[in-house]
């Protein structure tokens, strides 16, 4: 097994960041904050990939590039949707979005 530095702490930190992101999505009600929490989740996973790439070769690092690209595409579309909502409602609070009731 190749030498690794800080593998355990990195994975632990990544898990903590991911959980923070999940908690944020579940607890907060502002669309922008929710979106930031989702970005936090994705970047926590990126940290995992980087850390694991020490064990398994550069594949993990290449995945991170793909994930960042996807996150950028999602940001473009997501912010546009949030903007469209704001134009209609003058608010991005999810409590105000009650047209569709589950």
């Amino acid at each position: 097994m190749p030498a690794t530095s800080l593998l355990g702490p990195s994975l632990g930190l990544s898990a903590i960041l991911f959980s923070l992101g999940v908690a944020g999505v579940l607890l907060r009600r502002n669309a922008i904050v929710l979106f930031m929490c989702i970005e936090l989740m994705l970047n926590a996973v990126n940290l995992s990939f980087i850390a694991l790439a020490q064990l398994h070769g550069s594949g993990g690092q290449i995945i991170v590039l793909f994930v960042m690209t996807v996150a950028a595409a999602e940001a473009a579309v997501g912010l546009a949707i949030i903007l469209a909502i704001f134009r209609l409602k003058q608010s991005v609070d999810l409590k105000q979005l009650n047209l569709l009731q589950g």
Partner: protein
Amino acid sequence: MTQLDLGTPGGIMLALLPELLLTGWALLVLLVVAWRHRTAEDSRLAGWLSFAGVAVSAAGLAALWVNGATPAGLAQMVALDPFRYGADAVALIAAGGTILLSLGYLERESLLAPEYYPLVLLSTAGMLFLAGAEDLIVLFLGLEVMSVGVYVLAGYDRNNPASAEAALKYFLIGAFASGFLLYGIALVYGATGTTNLSLVGAQLAGRPLPLMAALGLGLLLIGLGFKVAAVPFHMWAPDVYDGSPTPVTGFMATGVKAAAFAALVRVLLEAFPSATSLWQPIVAGLAIASMVVGNLAALVQRSLKRMLAYSSIAHAGYLLTAVWAGTQAGAGAVLFYLLAYSLVTLAAFGFLSVFGRGGERDVSLDDIAGLARSRPWVAFGFSVCMFSLLGFPGTFGFMGKWYIISALAAERQYILPVILVLTSVVSAGYYLPVVMAMYMRPAPDSERYAGVRLAPAALGAIALAVAVVLLFGVWPGPLLDVAGQSALTLTQTGLPFAGP
């Protein structure tokens, strides 16, 4: 049988023929609409051009399928087996149907922004990658290409608050779910050192499942569970289906679901065949919850669109029982049922879009009362859809359910089939009133939807779908053979690396 050498650029291009044709065509359509995007005629041109793109991609797919292309050696990134071809075919049918339904709809609802059709094509390309992914990274990228396009399509009617709200909900929940999926991929990668599904299967074979891989599997199931709208990850589906423009709802309920199910089957059967004792109870739980909750919630819906949304959750439950089997027959049943379900669902949402004018969300049983008298053919077609969704003998839907049940019975599993049949009986409680309203109740006084007509293209697509549903309901033999063979080869490609 043609062997494609995936080590050469030529081989890779051939292996990705449907995806490349579709992506290239989508760029072409984008270029065309850059110049022609002002009138309804331009929108029609883009629509027909996109439909041609789907046909070209389907021709590429058929070429691969007929020649029985297989990889020389290990499939690296994208699978080359009939299971992929079958799932791709369902996605392409969903895309073609959606385009035909949209042709008249966009014009009538004055949604003439030009990006609609290229977005449909690009998200379909994502579906093809997702359904054929042999590598977890391709799976993630395919899922995102598909989803990002559909997020925009859901909010296409952006001046309509319901549509914008649907887009926001779909986007937030979808991105949340892909976070889980990605973490699952990271953990599986950490546990096995590879993201190739067959190699993951080989690594995990013959030893107890490492905790990291088990966690990864769980997170993958959560991520894909959101995408297929299985209970308890379904809460977004009714709202999003309800608020989106109706042809887009049809696209989400068929193409997105089909591609996600194909990916789910491939992940479970190729990467985790050694962990069936872990994922079978989870899948069974999801299936039972989806069947029960979906059918019961559909019973109390007033709006037909929401009723169909809950019914699609119930159908995800039926499909999950076939996934549970974890066998070749189960995978074949998934494909077969997906085709049956997609045709009918597209046609049903097509009928619903007849009532459009921004009021389609409110179409209730009262609005279609007495339809058989004023529009006998629409009533007949819609009834066929309802009977097929119910699984009435003589329709495609019945054959689909029968195939699922026989795949489960082969595994000596009888609890899931019993629940499937019982919940199907419950579903008669909301499918049959639709038929009864059309045939047995007098027409209401207000002629709210009297002047609304379907465009000829949409009418043709729906008529074709209904005809196919009736045809395969009584003569399913050839299609069963195809589905059976597809599943067979899926497991064959997985086997060389799987354990004893």
